């Protein structure tokens, strides 16, 4: 074997391993979400449940650009982000079950997943409300001279909120290390982007604050990953905030109480042809990086993980009602 072909092989292996990793992450989210919908129908999960199916490439691609020290602020459609960030499927499902072994002891539920170990700051269900928090986290890091990125996910709906504009301005004014990731799925709940925004090209909003911005195909995990890495590198080099718009689509209803009167089945079907998972599988196969056997094995492993997570949640316990008023105030006096 020549040195050249050895290098080529090595590169192919890296590419394959990485491709399989991205695919696994997206599949884990997809299967977790499908199972969540099922568990909702079985009334194991209640409250609101917002599924991320169709948008997996965004969370998975962006997480590749982040280090364990970085902070994440997400929305109420955040199971995928939590899982991709490293929270366990068991802790997430147990939380949706309302059990004390859930990541927030059942206090948060589907919309409020939090985790201190992975610096996952929610699970924020007031649209736009997480952006100022991200500004503050980034401000704290900057004031403490830490080279850390705060990554803030939000949807196209948040762009209409004042908090989006206030936060973009503050982040730019103070040159804070924030990656703003706009998951543009074209609908704020049921209101189409063109009915919400006078300017629908969202990256133009960033120009108003002199924030570097880029729009990418949010259905393409490699494109999202590359763009997020570039953005994170720029932020880490001290260039201030970055606005990354990921153009994506939600395949399922907004929540479990949505008859989807505001969009056509044809539109949904058209987008489904761009499914981030099936298109990525095709791409990997075309490049001989994935075999049917690989895929079967991957599906088996993911299925096992979700099955175990559900079994874990089923075995979890309810917090005693005597504990109801805990966590309103801290149990230790001094900080």
């Amino acid at each position, binding site marked *: 074997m020549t040195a050249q072909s050895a290098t080529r092989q090595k590169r192919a292996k890296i590419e394959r391993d990485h491709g399989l990793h991205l695919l696994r992450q997206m599949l884990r989210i997809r299967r977790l979400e499908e199972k969540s919908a099922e568990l909702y129908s079985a009334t194991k999960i209640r409250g609101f449940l917002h599924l991320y199916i169709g948008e997996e490439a965004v969370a998975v691609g962006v997480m590749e650009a982040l280090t364990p020290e970085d*902070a994440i602020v997400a929305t109420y459609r955040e199971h995928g982000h939590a899982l991709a960030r490293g929270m366990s499927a068991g802790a997430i499902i147990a939380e949706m079950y309302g059990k004390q072994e*859930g*990541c*927030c*002891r*059942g*206090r*948060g539920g589907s919309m*409020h997943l*939090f*985790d*201190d170990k992975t610096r996952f*700051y*929610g*699970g*924020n269900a*007031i649209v736009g*409300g997480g*952006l*100022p*928090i*991200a*500004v*503050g*986290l*980034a*401000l*704290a*890091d900057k*004031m*403490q001279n830490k080279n850390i990125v*705060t990554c803030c996910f939000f949807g196209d709906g948040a762009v209409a909120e*004042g*908090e989006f504009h*206030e*936060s973009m*301005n*503050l982040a730019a*004014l103070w040159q804070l290390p924030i990656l703003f990731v706009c998951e543009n799925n074209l609908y704020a709940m049921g209101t189409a982007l063109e009915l919400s925004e006078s300017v629908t090209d969202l990256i133009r909003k960033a120009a108003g604050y002199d924030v570097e911005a880029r729009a990418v195909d949010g259905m393409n995990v490699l494109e999202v990953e590359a763009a997020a890495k570039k953005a994170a590198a720029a932020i880490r080099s001290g260039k201030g905030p970055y606005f990354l718009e990921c153009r994506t689509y939600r395949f399922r209803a907004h929540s479990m109480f949505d008859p989807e009167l505001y969009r056509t089945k044809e539109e949904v079907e058209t987008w489904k042809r761009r499914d981030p998972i099936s298109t990525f599988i095709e791409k990997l196969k075309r490049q001989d990086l994935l075999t049917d056997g690989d895929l079967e094995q991957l599906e088996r492993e993911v299925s096992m993980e979700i099955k175990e997570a559900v079994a874990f949640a089923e075995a979890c316990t309810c917090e005693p009602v005597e504990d109801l008023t*805990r*966590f*309103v*105030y*801290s*149990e*230790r*006096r*001094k*900080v």
Partner: protein
Amino acid sequence: MNGGSGNLRRTTYRDAVREAMREALLKDRRVFLMGEDVGRYGGCFAVSKGLLEEFGPERIRDTPLCESAFVGAGIGAALGGMRPIVEIMTVNFSLLAADQILNNAATYLHMSGGLFNVPLVIRMATGGGKQLAAQHSHSLEGWYAHIPGLKVLTPATLEDARGMLWTALEDPDPVLIFENNTLYNMEGELPTDAGPVEIDKAKVRRQGRDLTIVTYGASLFKALEAADCLTKEGIEVEVIDLRTLRPLDDETFLTSIAKTHRALIVDEGWRSGGISAEISARIMEGAFYELDAPVERLCTVEVPLPYAKHLEDVALPQVDRIIPIARKMVQTNG
């Protein structure tokens, strides 16, 4: 805790708050002040005047006019290991940040099952009496006291203006400090070594046997003045300064009412659904059989505060309204 015992010196409420901030900025590198016009302008009530020169623009941080974002940024910075003091010009403006205060600051600890506490201090001016009309004069601290997860402080005295801030900064959870804007110029004496004070207890500011006035903030001084007048008529009024509206220290006023058997609540907030209603309910629950007269309330008349002085004066609780109510109550014998 040390309210101070050294030599006395003249100071003002404004200077006491500034000294408290200065001390905190000197003691703890994590502390910084953020808000509209806190730096170059010196604070809209001149409370932070001079701090920018001493601590620089990183720690005395002027913000744009975006209450929601800078209060939210305060929450984020607190989560990120800092100890921010966020100043909001007036309580009316705080409504622009109500989302962050209620939906985030007050709920993060609970929603996260105890993972994330928010050690944030928010200071703001409150209250009427300066002819600032209906968008700068209201007393909404009682509203905030409705919210579990928050602590609501209402320093009235120089000692509390000086001492509550540090204790609030040491608290692991969000604390709101309401400074009545008519108090900033109040002069008085404070020990040179005045320091942090506890924030969980109400205080008896004047002893009396005939009637208890429960109050807080600027109304404290109106109650004390009324008590001085009434003593000439042989009526001895006990005056309780709540100091903190949440958590509410009901033990102190219930103990007082067990002695005086009469309670008048003086509150600059509106009457309906206000903190005075809560206090009254707690008296019913905890001291009903002690009462010799119905609980009375003197609150701000239920109008948006008007500009004209003669109207504003009548709208707010005043000494000349406290006196006849107190007199009548003492004459009532249940």
